[in-house]
C-alpha cells in the first residue's frame, strides 16, 4: 500500500539498525513520548532488535493513560443522566474510573456513543436539541484543533446543547516535569510527530538548552522510529543537544498556523492533574471565557468525590520512564487488558497493554 509500505521496508530497517549499532558506544536511555510510537516499537518488536546499549522507555503520551480519575468519574456521572448524551472516541470507554467505566454506564442505561470526530458529536447535538450532548475532549495538542473547531461551529451556528468535557493536556510541560523529577533517567526524547505537526518545535528549543537533552521530532512508522533513534543516538554520542526533525514529511518548525489560531481562540492553558504524574502547572487546556457556555463541567457541576490513585499500581513510574510495565507485581496477573488495574493497561497505546499484547513478561525480559 502506497505511503505505508515505504516506511516499513525491512531491508532499509536492517540498514538503519546496523547504523545504530555502529554509532553507539555506551548505554543511553531514550524516551519515546507518544503512545503511538510505543505501539509501533512493541508491535513490530523494534525494541528487541536494537543494540542492548539503547534502552527505550515509554513516555506519558497516551491520552487514555493520563486523563485523571476525577474527569473519568465526571464523564461516567454525566453519561448516566437521562438529559445527556456522552460522545467519546472508542478507547476512552474502557478506561476505569474509580468504580465504573463508560461501558458500564452504558449497560446501566446511559446514552454513550462512540464517534470518530467531534463534528459527529455536533451532528448528534443538532439531532437531539432537547438533550445536552457532551463530547469527551481528550488528547494532546493533536486533537485540540478539531475539538476547538467543533465548539467554534457550535457557537457560530447556535447549537447551544453541544458541550465539551475538556481533558486536554500538553506535551512540553510533561517533558519538563519528567526531566526535573528526582531520579530522572531520560537522556533524550523522541518528540511526538503528530503533536509537532500542529505545534511545530519552537517550544522544545528551550528544553534542549536548559536540560542539555537531544530532542528528535519523530514519526510513527517503523522506519521513522529507527531513523529518529539513530539521529538521537548520534546527538548523544557527539555531545550535541538540539531539536532535530525526522518527520519532515509532516512537520515544519513553525507548526500549522491555522490550527494554532483556532486552538488559541477556543482554549487557554490551565493547571492540570495527570493520572500517574500528579498536578503539572499550565499543562492542560480549558475553554476560554468566550466559549465557557459550552463547558460541560459548568453545565453539569455535580460534585465528584476525589478518589486517590492506588499506591500499588506503578502507572506513574511507568509514565515517567522510571519503571517498565513488567516491573509491576500486578502486571499480567492481577492486571490485564480485560481487568485493568491502571490506565496504561487499557488502550493499545498504553505502555502496559503494549507490553502485555506483545507478550513481554517479567521472566522473558529479565533473561
Amino acid at each position, binding site marked *: 500500500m502506497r505511503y505505508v509500505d515505504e516506511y516499513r521496508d525491512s531491508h532499509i530497517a536492517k540498514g538503519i539498525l546496523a547504523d545504530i549499532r555502529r554509532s553507539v558506544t555506551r548505554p543511553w536511555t531514550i524516551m519515546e513520548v507518544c503512545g503511538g510510537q510505543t505501539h509501533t516499537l512493541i508491535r513490530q518488536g*523494534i525494541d528487541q532488535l536494537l543494540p542492548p546499549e539503547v534502552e527505550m522507555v515509554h513516555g506519558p503520551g497516551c491520552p487514555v493513560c493520563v486523563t485523571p480519575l476525577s474527569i473519568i468519574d465526571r464523564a461516567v456521572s454525566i453519561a448516566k443522566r437521562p438529559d445527556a448524551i456522552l460522545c467519546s472516541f472508542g478507547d476512552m470507554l474502557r478506561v476505569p474510573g474509580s468504580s465504573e467505566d463508560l461501558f458500564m454506564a452504558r449497560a446501566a442505561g446511559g446514552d454513550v456513543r462512540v464517534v470518530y470526530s467531534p463534528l459527529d458529536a455536533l451532528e448528534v447535538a443538532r439531532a437531539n436539541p432537547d438533550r445536552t450532548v457532551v463530547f469527551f475532549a481528550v488528547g494532546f495538542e493533536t486533537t485540540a484543533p478539531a475539538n476547538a473547531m467543533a465548539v467554534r461551529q457550535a457557537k457560530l451556528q447556535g447549537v447551544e446543547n453541544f458541550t465539551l468535557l475538556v481533558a486536554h493536556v500538553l506535551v512540553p510541560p510533561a517533558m519538563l516535569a519528567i526531566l526535573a523529577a528526582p531520579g530522572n533517567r531520560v537522556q533524550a526524547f523522541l518528540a511526538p510527530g503528530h503533536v509537532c505537526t500542529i505545534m511545530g518545535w519552537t517550544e522544545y528549543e528551550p528544553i534542549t538548552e536548559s536540560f542539555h537533552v537531544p530532542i528528535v521530532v519523530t514519526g510513527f512508522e517503523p522506519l521513522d522510529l529507527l531513523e529518529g533513534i539513530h539521529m538521537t543516538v548520534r546527538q548523544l554520542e557527539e555531545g550535541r543537544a538540539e531539536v532535530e526533525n525526522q518527520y519532515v514529511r509532516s512537520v515544519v518548525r513553525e507548526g500549522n498556523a491555522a490550527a494554532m489560531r483556532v486552538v488559541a481562540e477556543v482554549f487557554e492553558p490551565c493547571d492540570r492533574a495527570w493520572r500517574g504524574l500528579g498536578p503539572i502547572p499550565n499543562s492542560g487546556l480549558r475553554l476560554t471565557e468566550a466559549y465557557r457556555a459550552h463547558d460541560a463541567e459548568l453545565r453539569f457541576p455535580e460534585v465528584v468525590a476525589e478518589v486517590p490513585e492506588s499506591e500499588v499500581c506503578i502507572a506513574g513510574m511507568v509514565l515517567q520512564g522510571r519503571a517498565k510495565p513488567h516491573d509491576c507485581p500486578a502486571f499480567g496477573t492481577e492486571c490485564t487488558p480485560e481487568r485493568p488495574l491502571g490506565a496504561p493497561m487499557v488502550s493499545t497505546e498504553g505502555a502496559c497493554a503494549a507490553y502485555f499484547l506483545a507478550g513481554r513478561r517479567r521472566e522473558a525480559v529479565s533473561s
Partner: protein
Amino acid sequence: MTTPDAPALACPVPLPPGESVLLGHGSGGKLTADLIRSVFVPAFGDGELARLGDAAVVEVEGVRLAFTTDGFVVTPRFFPGSDIGALSVNGTVNDLAMMGATPLFLSAGLILEEGLPMEDLRRVVASMAEACRKAGVRLVTGDTKVVERGGADGLYVTTAGLGVVPDGVDVGPERAQPGDAVLVSGPIGSHGVAVMSRRAGIEFDGALHSDTAPLTGLAHAMITAGDLHTMRDATRGGVASVLNEIAEASGVGITTDESAFPILDPVRAACEMLGLDPLYVANEGVCVAVVAGADAGAVLAAARADPMGSAAAMVGTVEEGRGVRVRTDLGGSRPLVMLAGDQLPRIC
C-alpha cells in the same frame, strides 16, 4: 521489587465485568469465551456442546448430522455488498460447511420491531431466498414475532441449519497437529470494515464490500484435495480469535507470518486510519483451514481453483506448544492473543 500480597493490591480501579452483560460478551473475544465456559457449557454438560465447533456433529442411525444455530443483529441491516438476510443464511451454511457437512435445510426465526418498513422486510426476505438458492439449501420452517417499538432494532434473524457429514470426512476443531499448515481462504477483514465504515459514516471511495458468501463449494474442494484436519469460519473476533480457538482446542501452538495474510488495499487503508488490526476484524466468507503439511500445496491449489478461494494463502504452521505467534516483517515477533472485547478505534 517485592511482590505485595494479593489483598494489598487495593487499587481503586479494578473493574471486572461484574454482574451485567456487556457488549464485549458478544464480541467473539475472550469475554465471549468466558461466558460460554462459565454459563452455557456447565448448564447443559453435553460433550458435543463442549467441543465448541462451528456446528455440532451428532449421529442418528448411522448418519452423521451437522447441526447449528446463529443469531444476527447487525447494524445497519443493509451494508455495502450485502445485508442481514444473506448474512443469516451464509453464516449458518458456513458453520455447517466448516464441519465438512453438506448443508441441506435451514429454519429462520424473525423478531420484528413494530414500525419496521414492510419494504425493508421484503428486501431482507428476498435476500435470504437468493442466498438459499446460491448455497443450495432449502429453508423449510420458520417463525415470526413482533415486539413493541423500541424492543428491538428493526429486525433480528436467527437461523438454524442441518446438514449431513459424508462418510470418510472428519474435520474438527481439536484435530490440528504439529507439522500441519495453516491456510486462509481469502482476503481478510473486508466484511467487518465494510460494516464499520457504514456504521461510522466513513466513506472509502465505495471500495469496501462485505465478503459474505457460502463457503460450501470451497470447503468441499479443499476437503477432497487432501488431509484437512480443521476448518473454522473466521467471523467475529477475526482470524486471530479463530487461530487461538484452534490452538486451544487442539493443544498446539501456531506461528504465522504477518505479511502472508491476504488483505485488500482499501481494507488495510481503513484499518490504518481507524487504528484497527485486520487480524481481529470480522469476516463472513473467509475460513481458516489446518491441513496435513504434506497436503498443503494440493489443498491450496484446490482452494485457489474455486472462485471463493482465488486469493487463498498459506499463512503459518502448527507446532508443539501453545498459543499463537505472529512474525513481523522486521523480524520481531509477538503473540497474537485473544482480545477481551471488541477492538476500539484509537484516539490518535
